[in-house]
């Protein structure tokens, strides 16, 4: 990176691969949203936090739900409140501005300093949602018909979008994004990640835990594979409980921390009974 742009190179508690850092910097330089995809628990949401920390910029998070509409992110016109106020003659009802509240995107646009806008799990929303956001993300402005105002971003926010690939995103939307897929970390990277969170973890414990963890992930029939955050919780539980290290592989204590579905726990139990599931898969 030669020019003097804000440059992201990971942070103290986030391990980013060089490709990921490159993608982040490209998206900042080209002023295009960065679309991050990957298995749950590969640190998609954490990335935005890490960038905000590293570049010392405010982070605005817009979590998408299945009922979220694109307009909700821009502004909300509280008509019901206005109606009630008019009945009881409270406040100045003529002042519509009072009833218009900025959404998360709106907030990011009116922020004084360049913020980071995280649109989290965009695929949760309706299929049309990404298309409805095209103009706003392109031009970084929107129009409020009620007050005849145009809100334009003071500083183009850095936009990070995450997706769990539950739904396909429209092509028109994809064309405007920089894309990066976070692959599930390999054991070596995972070791670094764990070390960031537990600086003084015993090496033998880490070996055992990682070994069992990747074996569990290797079992074919597991529906919800344990991810990084579950591994971290598990290691925490293991260290606190002080279970002897050699028992980890044998007993798999606190399995419920790693697996969140009854069927999956049954599957693991079964394959252990048959004696091959955990060994040699």
């Amino acid at each position, binding site marked *: *990176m*030669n*020019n003097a742009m804000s440059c992201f190179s990971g942070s103290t508690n986030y391990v980013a691969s*060089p*490709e990921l850092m*490159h*993608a982040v*910097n*490209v*998206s900042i*330089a*080209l002023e*295009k949203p960065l*679309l991050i*995809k990957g298995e749950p628990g590969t640190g998609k949401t954490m990335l935005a936090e890490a960038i905000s920390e590293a570049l010392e910029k405010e982070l605005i998070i817009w979590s998408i739900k299945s*009922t979220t509409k694109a307009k909700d992110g821009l502004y909300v016109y509280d008509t*019901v409140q206005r*109606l*009630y106020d008019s*009945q009881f003659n409270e406040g100045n009802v003529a002042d519509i501005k009072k009833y218009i509240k900025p959404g998360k995107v709106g907030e990011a646009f009116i922020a004084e300093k360049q913020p980071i806008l995280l649109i989290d799990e965009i695929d949760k929303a309706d299929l049309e949602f990404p298309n409805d956001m095209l103009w706003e993300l392109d031009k970084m402005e929107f129009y409020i018909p009620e007050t005849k105002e145009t809100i334009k971003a003071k500083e183009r926010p850095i936009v990070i979008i995450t997706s769990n*690939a*539950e739904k396909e*995103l429209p*092509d028109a939307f*994809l*064309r*405007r*994004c*920089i*894309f*990066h*897929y976070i692959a599930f970390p390999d054991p070596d990277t995972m070791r670094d990640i764990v070390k960031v969170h537990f600086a003084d973890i015993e090496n033998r414990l880490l070996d055992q835990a990682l070994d069992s963890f990747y074996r569990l992930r290797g079992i*074919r*029939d597991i*529906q*919800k594979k344990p991810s990084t955050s579950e591994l971290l919780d598990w290691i925490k539980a293991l260290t606190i409980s002080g279970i002897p290290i050699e028992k980890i592989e044998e007993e798999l204590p606190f399995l419920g921390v790693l697996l969140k579905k009854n*069927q999956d726990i049954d599957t693991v139990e079964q394959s252990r009974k048959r004696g091959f599931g955990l060994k040699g898969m």
Partner: protein
Amino acid sequence: MFIEFFYLLRERKLMVSTTEWLDLCEALDSGLCGPSLLEFYHLCRAILVKSEADYDKFDMAFAIYFRDVENLPDIPDEVWKWLNGGEKTKDELWDKIDPNAPDYELDQLKKMLQERLQEQRSCHRGGNYWIGAGGTSVLGHGGFAKQGVRVGGESRYQSALQVARQRDYRDFREDNILDTRQFQLAFRKLRQYSSTMQAEKTELDIDGTIQKTSDNAGYLNLVFEKPRKNTVKLLLLFDSDGSMQRYSKLCSALFQAVYKSNHFSDLKVYYFHNCVYEHLYKDPACRRGEWVNTEWVLANLGSEYRVIFVGDAAMAPSELFREGGNCVIGMYNDIPGVDWLKRIKDRYPHHIWLNPIPERSWHDIFGHYTVEAIEEMIPMFELTLTGLEKGIKKLLVNR
């Protein structure tokens, strides 16, 4: 610059748009890329490729375009030179084939390639032993051997190991005149309103509001209710095997009925060939590579999806029960088809199988063994209006 690369990508079915290409140019102009090819690779990929599913296509195109920059490590430069130019026709080569040549396994061929790479010191054309172009050796390209490893060049005669047979079945989506309305009416029954489920109250209930406001002596009192929308999500799995072709009209009608029934909250359609294995195809032609992993479907489509299989369920028992039973050449399956069906069945509590073969013949046709086995596992109905209606009732029943 690199404009051929752009077209190569598009040729490889990576639909890069002009906007994205200009973005890449802008990125290069503004010095976002260092001198290394790897960095350039990552930059291109981040800007041009928008799905991890396409990473592979991109890699292949990149490797082809930049192969002069960085050669494959295990094939030395001279070998590439030996292989360039001088191709012969199939007829010229035909009489050169040694009929007694042994059949090699893929592993053997790979090993032979290794050995020859060590022995060979010069360029070869038209021979039958060394790595070369235009001969009947099993190693090289542009030649004609019953099997072999292609080293560079374009595929000429599709005879290298692992070429699966081409199947181009007619697309179910094409229009026909058959009346689909009756099927459509049947599908209309497949619904479950969100008002009977847990949902947020987001819609204004006008009657309720009038009632409450009157009760409240004219002071406004707004009442909201749950929206009334169909929440049924449908996963449709079509068999597009050759034996299904005689039922294509019927299947086509069903397909169109489903597509026209726009009241589903989501509809996913995939195809399989005889039985479900590790891949589900995206279109009825079942072309290699144009698929999604069955695993992905299981992981990403929640258990609320209702599954309809459409297929004749008649196949050779090994196709259902055996590992490696997949009859498509080169598609060895580690997990028998029956286990895949079971996994789908376990994942989605609401599932039915529609069979275009009339119910009365299920027990005496060719393949009745697998029909019966599947019928035992998944509720099976014949693909007629009555069968469909019965099936839909079954899909709506709770567990």
